[in-house]
């Protein structure tokens, strides 16, 4: 991989992590959604670096284009101002939370340590639309149909939840 690829990786990874930190520390939910949009775009560029072009475009289209817009609509319709009470934690609670969180992070890093020497594959695998389409309609046809069932049931659930209560 040339130097441009390495620079792009570090820029995208750093912006993804920093904007994810901005999501969880922002006091207004609108700004949190906007920071998450930056995270999605950074992740999409990481996908392009991994030669997964179809997943990168789907990430922008569906995540940043539909799901986050849905979040923004709900926040706007509910009129949430977003100043939430932050309960002052006791001293040992902060330390315990940090220790547990860092232990979990260390465990994840150790679990991935076995793959340290895997090299980037050559020009063999490219996640183009044709390749992913052949995989979706080939070995992964059954999960594909199941996901359509999940989406249908999701629609049923949302319509059921959104109906007005019938007066008795």
């Amino acid at each position, binding site marked *: 991989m040339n130097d441009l690829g390495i620079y792009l990786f570090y820029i995208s990874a750093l912006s993804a992590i920093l904007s994810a930190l901005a999501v969880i520390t922002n006091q207004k939910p609108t700004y949190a959604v906007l920071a998450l949009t930056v*995270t999605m775009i950074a992740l999409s560029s*990481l996908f392009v670096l991994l030669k997964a072009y179809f997943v990168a475009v789907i990430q922008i289209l569906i995540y940043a284009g539909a799901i986050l817009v*849905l*979040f923004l609509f709900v926040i706007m319709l509910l009129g*949430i101002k977003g100043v*939430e009470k932050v309960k002052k934690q006791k001293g040992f609670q902060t330390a315990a*939370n940090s220790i547990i969180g860092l232990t979990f992070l260390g465990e*994840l*890093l150790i679990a991935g340590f076995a793959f340290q020497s895997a090299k980037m594959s050559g020009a063999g695998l490219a996640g183009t639309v044709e390749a992913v389409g052949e995989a979706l309609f080939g070995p992964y046809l059954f999960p594909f149909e199941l996901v359509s069932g999940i*989406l249908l049931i999701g629609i049923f659930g949302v319509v059921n939840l959104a109906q007005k209560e019938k007066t008795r």
Partner: protein
Amino acid sequence: MITLYHYLIVSALLFVIGVFGVSTRRNIIVILLSIEIMLNAANLSFVAFSSFLNDLGGQTVSLFVVAIAASEVAIGLAVAVLLFKNRGILDPNEMNLMKD
């Protein structure tokens, strides 16, 4: 040289940031956003493995994760809207009707 481990480090950091968001924030919308961060971290891990191990299954499963995340966000936001209409606040610590 960017190895697979670099991508896994990014994925692990994003996942732990999502976990902190879920456990720390007191706004249901932001909790749902942190769940989205966790799902994206898992997606990155899937696609990284798929690209480095020459298997298209990771990217296919990543598409399924996106679809499932979409339906989960829809239902979660519907529940959050109903909670807000009934209670007026979005604080998960105040939803304690089932508590003693």
